């Protein structure tokens, strides 16, 4: 049974107050800001958004179903700086009403189903530790299994220091499924919002088949402070902005928030999940290209392949199954075929 997303009524601040726009210094009435998708009506500054607001913005009403909501962080290092890590997590939970810095689930955009993950920067700077990495990986794996386009809306300062290298390795954990989406013909759209830096940008967020950034979002590998401090020089104007990345060729487009949903909807139609066709087993066919080495191996070690991937592969004649290096390398010309559709 679909569960109503519990955070949709949660707002970022009291509605009867004013907010000063950091871009143009104008006072904006909060209700007006929310009606305007948290974009300054005077200068177009895009304020940060919570996950509930983002879901309302992007998905068809009532279609979002959260998954793996019960994942919660441990404290693998027993980490304490001026405050123990578990206390920091508790404080973030109270502040945001979230259990972690990211949420994922399925939903629809103009009726097109998607697997979508979203970050909230207010939860420990949207930092990625074990739980956030696990959620993103599961989002991609569900996209693969259910053949749904994957969308991630990033807002993160990077990997979470309090989980040490376990956080660093989440870069690889969240990126590994993308190679499988490539093979399976499932698209991934990455949306970069203010701010997206560090380990999140240095992993899946930079690898979208299409990458959309929000106007003037801060996007960069190193925090601007780190970059400046390290190299001891002044940074170029507009450095690490969405506009800078567009010019340098690292994002595809900058889309104002009011057009984000319609742009996503069009992209989903233009970049559809590839059709599936079951292929028939083919007799006596070999491929020996760089990819084809797999078939050679599969034939030589049929048993191992069956165990690993649950299929039956007839061992070929001469399948010795030995060798401490993968196939080929014998110097003798291999039975080549030209067949290779890649």
């Amino acid at each position: 049974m679909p569960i109503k997303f519990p955070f949709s009524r949660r707002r970022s601040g009291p509605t009867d107050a004013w907010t000063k726009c950091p871009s143009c210094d104008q006072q904006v009435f909060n209700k007006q800001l929310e009606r305007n998708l948290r974009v300054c009506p005077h200068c177009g500054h895009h304020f940060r958004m919570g996950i509930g607001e983002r879901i309302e913005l992007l998905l068809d009403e009532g279609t979002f179903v959260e998954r793996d909501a019960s994942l919660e962080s441990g404290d693998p290092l027993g980490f304490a700086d001026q405050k123990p890590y578990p206390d920091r997590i508790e404080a973030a939970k109270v502040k945001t009403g979230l259990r972690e810095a990211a949420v994922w689930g399925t939903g629809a955009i103009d009726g097109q189903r998607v697997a979508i993950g979203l970050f909230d920067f207010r939860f420990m700077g949207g930092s990625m530790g074990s739980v956030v990495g696990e959620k993103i990986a599961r989002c991609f794996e569900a996209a693969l299994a259910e053949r749904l386009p994957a969308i991630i809306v990033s807002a993160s300062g990077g990997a979470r220091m309090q989980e040490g290298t376990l956080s660093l390795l989440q870069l690889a954990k969240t990126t590994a499924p993308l190679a499988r989406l490539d093979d399976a013909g499932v698209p991934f759209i990455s949306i970069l919002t203010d701010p997206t830096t560090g380990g999140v940008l240095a992993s899946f967020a930079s690898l979208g088949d299409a990458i959309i950034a929000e106007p003037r979002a801060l996007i960069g590998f190193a925090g601007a402070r780190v970059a400046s401090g390290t190299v001891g020089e002044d940074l170029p104007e507009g450095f690490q902005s969405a506009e800078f990345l567009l010019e340098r060729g690292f994002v595809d487009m900058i889309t104002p928030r009011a057009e984000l949903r319609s742009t996503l909807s069009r992209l989903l139609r233009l970049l559809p999940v590839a059709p599936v066709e079951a292929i028939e087993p083919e007799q006596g066919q070999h491929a020996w290209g760089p990819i084809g080495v797999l078939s050679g191996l599969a034939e030589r070690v049929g048993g191992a392949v069956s165990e690993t991937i649950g299929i039956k592969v007839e061992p070929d004649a001469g399948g010795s199954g030995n060798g401490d290096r993968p196939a080929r390398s014998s110097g003798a010309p291999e039975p080549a075929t030209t067949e290779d559709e890649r």
Partner: protein
Amino acid sequence: MTELMAPPDHAAVDAAWRRVQLARHPQRPRTLDLIPRIFDDFIELHGDRGFRDDPAIVGGPALLEGRPLMVIGHQKGTDTESNIMRNFGSAHPEGFRKAQRLMRLADKLGLPVVTFLDTAGAFPGPAAEERGQAEAIASSIKLMTGIQVPTVVVIVGEGGSGGALAIGVGDRVLALENAVYSVISPEGCAAILWRAPEAAPMAAAAMRMTAADQLELGVIDGIIDEPGEGAHTDHEAAARAIKRALLEALTTIGATATPELLTNRYARLRHIGTYTEDGAPAAEPELPSLRHRIGRILRLPGVPRRPRWSEVWPSGEDGPESEDES
């Protein structure tokens, strides 16, 4: 309630900081010190074919006991002049793109990949940003998760964050005894969480960045003992120890069939992390079968393959017949 460990005491802080200093020791053997001592032959290949050759990362084909493989590593300098030339081992995007090029070549020829990690981190300056440092690291990681050859990673000095991981995804990840591995430099961590760079030793202890800690956390698979007071005292002995470890690792994983290799590599990454689910410690995550990926390549029955254009965009009745596989 999570059980809290006491903050690291003075002895633990001192011990962690001593390892950091050993890992950064100016006489520690660098990649180009190790290569001629470990391999029978090596030819360095240069350049990313797009922008320039980044001297902070070196690599090329090498022979290990007569058998070819691809070796890639960070390269720090040994004195001020060479450190400036090598940018202290902190690569720009073109360094990671050179590494990617060499890994693709290894994948093409079926050569195992060996990497040596020794960097304080990827270079964070404006030039690196404008050439896409984050994209370069991300695509290196992605490539390493999928190459169809055995990959062994050795952390020889500093394993500094994303710049290390970019060439640090492997089927076996080993570390020298005094090597360290961390998500951020202890100085950076101290500046952010303690607001005091001089708290770096505290941060080093808190992040549990020593080789022994990394083994306990399951991030690395083994530790290579160093000679005497550390690898800097005897490059020959350090190289011999690394060579033994490489031969052992490659002999073990080299015998693994490629599909299993890729399944294990994926599972290894997927299992990293600590969390609870439904209030209970994480069960083994259910991993998607590799059947899909391998099946597409092997053309297994019932496994979808990537379509041709004619299937995505079927032609009219009078269009040309889509040709099938011969």
